[in-house]
């Protein structure tokens, strides 16, 4: 004697992104903290020293924030014009910044007044950085030159004038004190060696370069410019490795995650994309409210700081493990341990004779009614409001089961005004859902057949019927439009494809599949 087989509720494939370890990792941040700055935030830099303060360059100021503070810990305001590129030295003691007035200023983090002022550039300085030996400063300017300065003597060491347009980005090597890379609006990236007169390597990005980034190993170089992010192999003499085109506006900033496995790019199109550095596929995506100019990740990815054109600084902090657990605990109410276990942890002794008890299978309420052939009651149960609203697939599955048994018409018949309006409400809500349409169209036809005699007796039902009619008409129009578009696309494809004997269509979406 077989047991009753319960109604199969189909599991529909979840639309949208799939849950991957990456999405879990990057979603594990709290809601962003937003701070209003005085102007567009052009640069963010984290100190490598313990509390990991960060310097935010916006308008004529540089603010230094603590890791969890919303108020600046320190402010540098001694700029005559817009400040650019506030950078910490690797020991976290000094901070350098360029300025639109062509002067480069060096600050002590604890002080207020500039320790050194480097004058020599003729136009605004957008790029500043310390070399790895901490004694020199690299600057890049709109006067097409990049220079190296000595900090103790505050003198200019070398100047390179190879770029033919503004220099807007640059970085120094962390392994070699003499090597640095600059990117310019003349579409090129140049690698300089301070011991040599000229640039040692030139790469053509073919777009104005907005940002450059060296891998920790310094074998690979990433550049961003225009809509492209390009990866270059420095060890192979600057060979292009990959070109990524995932943004639809200029990419402004690049960053690496703490373990070097993920690359982040921020763009004017208000997105931050995260790439896997092994296959350069986008694994995650953040959306922001405005165009993004700067992006920085705290060590260990503890927070993501993004600066935007509207002057808003957005800080996302990682959720701590305790908070995460708290969330889970709140969601699931578990029964008391004693009741939950109920002898389940009893270990039988050696000589015990084991008698297995048949496991009683639990049937849902509508299944119990279906088992007894109470079809109307089963449909009523399936139409209960919470089930109807939150799990329409159950209601539809029960309708399908009744249809299979050939008794759907009987179950739909004999309903009063309230019941019928409930049913019609459900149909109006779900009949155009492509997952449910085949079943619900049959049900709708049956309802119209059964109740056409009583149309006009109830205003509520009449109103709903009219709504249903409008809905169906709109859907039919919509489908017709779609077919027209499809026809247009077909002709386009047919003309663009080379004439071949066979017609084969790649199709991965037409059939929906599910995983039980």
């Amino acid at each position, binding site marked *: 004697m077989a047991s009753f*087989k319960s109604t199969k509720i189909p599991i529909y494939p979840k639309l949208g992104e799939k849950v991957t370890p990456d999405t879990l990792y990057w979603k594990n941040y709290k809601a962003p903290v937003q701070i209003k700055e005085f102007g567009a935030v052009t640069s963010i830099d984290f100190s490598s020293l313990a509390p990991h303060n960060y310097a935010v360059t916006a308008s004529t100021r540089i603010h230094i924030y603590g890791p969890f503070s919303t108020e600046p810990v320190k402010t540098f305001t001694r700029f005559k014009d817009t400040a650019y590129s506030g950078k910490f030295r690797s020991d976290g003691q000094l901070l350098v910044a360029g300025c639109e007035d062509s002067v480069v200023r060096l600050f002590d983090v604890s002080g207020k007044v500039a320790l050194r002022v480097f004058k020599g550039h003729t136009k605004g300085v957008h790029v500043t950085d310390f070399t790895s030996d901490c004694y020199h400063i690299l600057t890049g300017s709109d006067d097409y030159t990049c220079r190296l300065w000595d900090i103790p003597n505050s003198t200019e060491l070398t100047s390179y004038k190879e770029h033919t347009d503004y220099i807007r980005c640059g970085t120094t090597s962390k392994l070699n004190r003499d090597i640095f890379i600059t990117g310019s609006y003349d579409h090129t990236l140049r690698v300089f060696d301070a011991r040599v007169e000229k640039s040692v390597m030139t790469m053509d990005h073919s777009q104005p370069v907005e940002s450059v980034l060296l891998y920790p190993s310094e074998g690979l170089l990433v550049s961003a410019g225009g809509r492209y992010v390009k990866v270059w192999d420095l060890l192979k003499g600057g060979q292009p490795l990959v070109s990524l085109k995932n943004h639809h506006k200029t990419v402004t900033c690049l960053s690496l995650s703490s373990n070097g496995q993920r690359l982040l790019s921020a763009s004017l199109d208000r997105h931050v994309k995260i790439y896997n550095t092994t296959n350069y596929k986008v694994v995650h995506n953040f959306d922001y409210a405005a165009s993004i100019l700067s992006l920085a990740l705290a060590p260990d990815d503890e927070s993501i700081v993004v600066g935007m054109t509207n002057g808003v600084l957005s800080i996302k902090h990682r959720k701590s493990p305790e908070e995460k657990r708290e969330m889970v605990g709140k969601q699931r109410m578990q029964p008391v341990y004693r009741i939950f276990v109920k002898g389940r942890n009893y270990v039988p002794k050696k000589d015990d004779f084991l008698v297995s008890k048949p496991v009683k299978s639990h049937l849902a309420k509508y299944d119990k009614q279906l088992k007894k052939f109470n079809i109307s009651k089963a449909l009523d149960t399936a139409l209960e409001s919470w089930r109807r609203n939150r799990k329409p697939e159950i209601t539809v599955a029960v309708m399908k089961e009744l249809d299979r048994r050939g008794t759907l018409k009987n179950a739909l018949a004999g309903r009063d005004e309230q019941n019928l309006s409930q049913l019609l409400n459900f149909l109006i809500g779900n009949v155009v859902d492509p997952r449910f349409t085949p079943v619900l169209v049959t049900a709708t036809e049956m309802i119209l057949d059964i109740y056409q005699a009583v149309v006009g007796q109830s205003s509520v039902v009449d109103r709903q019927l009219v709504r249903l009619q409008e809905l169906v008409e709109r859907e039919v129009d919509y489908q017709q439009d779609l077919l027209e578009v499809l026809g247009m696309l077909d002709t386009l494809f047919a003309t663009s494809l080379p004439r071949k004997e*066979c017609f084969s269509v790649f199709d991965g979406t037409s059939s929906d599949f599910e995983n039980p």
Partner: protein
Amino acid sequence: MVAHAEIRVVHLGGSKINFREPVITNDSRFLLCASGESVKVYSSSSEECVHDLQGHTDLVSGIVRNPSNHLQVYSCSADGTVRLWDFTDGILIKTFIIGYPIYSIYVSENHGGVVFVVVPMANDKSSELFQLVAVHLPLSGDQEVEARELSAVLCDVSPSGAASFGRKGEYIAAVKGLQLEVFFFKNQKSHRFFLKPGNKKGAKNAFTCVSCHPKEDCIATGHEDGKIRLWRNFNQKKEYTYSTLHWHHGAVNTLQFTPEGTNLLSGGIESVLVQWHYTQENQKDFLPRLGGAITHIAVSPDGSLFCTSHSDNKITIIQSCVKVSAIIQGLVKGEGVRTDLTIDPRSKALVLNGKPGHLQFYSLHRDKLLYNLDIVQQEYIHEEGLDQFEVVKAAFDTRGDWLATVEERTQKGSELEINLKLWAYDEQTQSFMLNTTVTAPHEDQIIAMCFSPSPEITMLVTISFDGHFKAWLLADHSDTKEGASWSCDFVGGYHHLKPGCCCFSADGSLLAVGFQEVVTVWSPSWELLTTLSQPPGAIRELCFGRLSCSKYLLGTSTKNQLCCWNLLTCSLEWSTPVDVSLLQADPLSENMAAFCSQSGCSDLFVFKPGEPRPLYSQKALCTGKVQRAVFAPRDQMLESCEEHAQWLNRSQLYFLTQHMDLMTFSTKTEEDRLLASSKLLMVDDSVAVTPFYLLLGKHRQQQEALTNPMAERIQLPQGSIAIKELLYTPAHVLPSASFLCSMFVRSLLISSSSASETKVLQHTLPFKSLGSLRNVLVFHEMSCKMNRKYSQDVDKVINNDF
């Protein structure tokens, strides 16, 4: 072509066991049922087939207990004989020749020496009318007796099971159409009762079955509309009464009173066994969801066991109407085999659709159903005229890791529902688990599907009437939690033509899809490599050659053409005008089997694509078209030296005829097979390496070492017989353990007589040892070189010698 006597077409098991009512023996230990041309004896507790009573030459049409001897049964058959069997030993005792095909048999305790059989009226076999005749069985010592003493009892009865004996055998009731006829033996009179056709309110009054109360004058009849009528007072023509019971919504298929008459059992299409209490008729017990529609109910003479036959070729044994204790399941063939015959690569079982919504795995070697796999996973509603989901296609991949099934449900006036399901083999549960369900994989019916045999890729190709073929790939989502699942990889078509068949080459490097007259050949990267065409006539079947013939592609077309293309030159190699209804490739060799239908008969040709002459051919294999066929690999290879039988060495060919009979080819002659089994026994004798034997053997050896070395030879066979009896006879036919134990212990002891024997033997030792030495030598020679037949002779000689 010469007919080869060595290769015979033989019926395979899997015949119907639900054809007639089964019989439970008096002690409830055995259950007998008619199964094709034989009667099968099953153990009611272990479900095992104990004996197969063979002797009838046509369909067995009824079994009844011999009322005068509880260890015997009568069986009747369409070959015109009634046979008396001893079912405990499986011996045919007597054969009574009636001379007319018999359709049913009835007996009564009060009519000793008489059996009542249903034979055609007017004594010609084509007649549609049947009569119940009493046959007086002559008392004679002969094995075969002609029973000529027939006397008609009732005219115009239904041929199957619609008659029943009343209280103390005083009367017999039979129903047919709208008429109930009761014949009283005392005054040799019959009363007839008629019902109106009664079409109002959906009533259908036609009788379907009848059963008489064993203790009271009451007849229960079942009707088309699900009513049960209890007739009383029927010995008067006018003042009869009946009461009506109604629960069944479909026709009542069968009715049976329990031996004491306290309960009435009824069953129908609902597959619910209903137990009505005879005195309180509004009380009833139900046993629901037994399987297919109930066709027969039998009750054991002591009333403790019920058994129900079901339309899905199943017998269920029920203990006291509450518990199903055993299920005997035969091969379910139903109205048609929708899925092809396939072989499960793991269990080597034959797989085809069985019970509604299920796939059955049937062991060909043991003639036993292994298990049913529930494909549809829906509650089956037993109701006539309901559109149910049916399993229409099934395919295995080469390793047996994946099973693909297609189920469909056609509904009047609405669209077709199709589901493609992919099942993964689970090592832990040793069964298939559902992995992916694809709803509506195609817009129209799926015609065929096949797995790619290539080991690198797990791919399924389905072709459909909607003009497309789709390739499904197993995509591994290891980065998400869901695990591997299937998704569509490619959709292809050719000039909007409807595809008809598809086939992968043996290494999976080519896919051939037949689009009406055109064969398209595709590479795994979905490039159309070439098209082959041989008009007129659409391509019906495609088959790649294997092993050394893998460069050939064979196709059959509707215009009676068998074509062979060479894929290296992309040209037609040869073609012949034969009407091939079925083309099947042997997976283990180059051979192909083609079934051709010609003038109402089927012929078989076995050939290699590269050779001009067929290896084997047989005309007039069977009447009608061969529906399905499959090559099943053998357990062990045969070493047949005859040239025309070599194609059966590696695998065996099974096929289904028009009448859904499963047939196969057997190369060995009957003696050969017997010899093989005897050889098997001999091997068992000499080896017998059971732990039990080793233990005993060691024990005895020690004893022997103490006494004398010669005793071992004499004792050994004795001991091994006892062990063999204990170990090789099925447990349920063995006598009780207490009895066995004493016997067994006795066999271990050295009896006084055997001790004296050893003394005698000691005297004749030189002669004896010489003789045995010679035997061993001869034996050795035999086993090396000679035929098995000789070895049997030698065996005899040895026996005589001892």
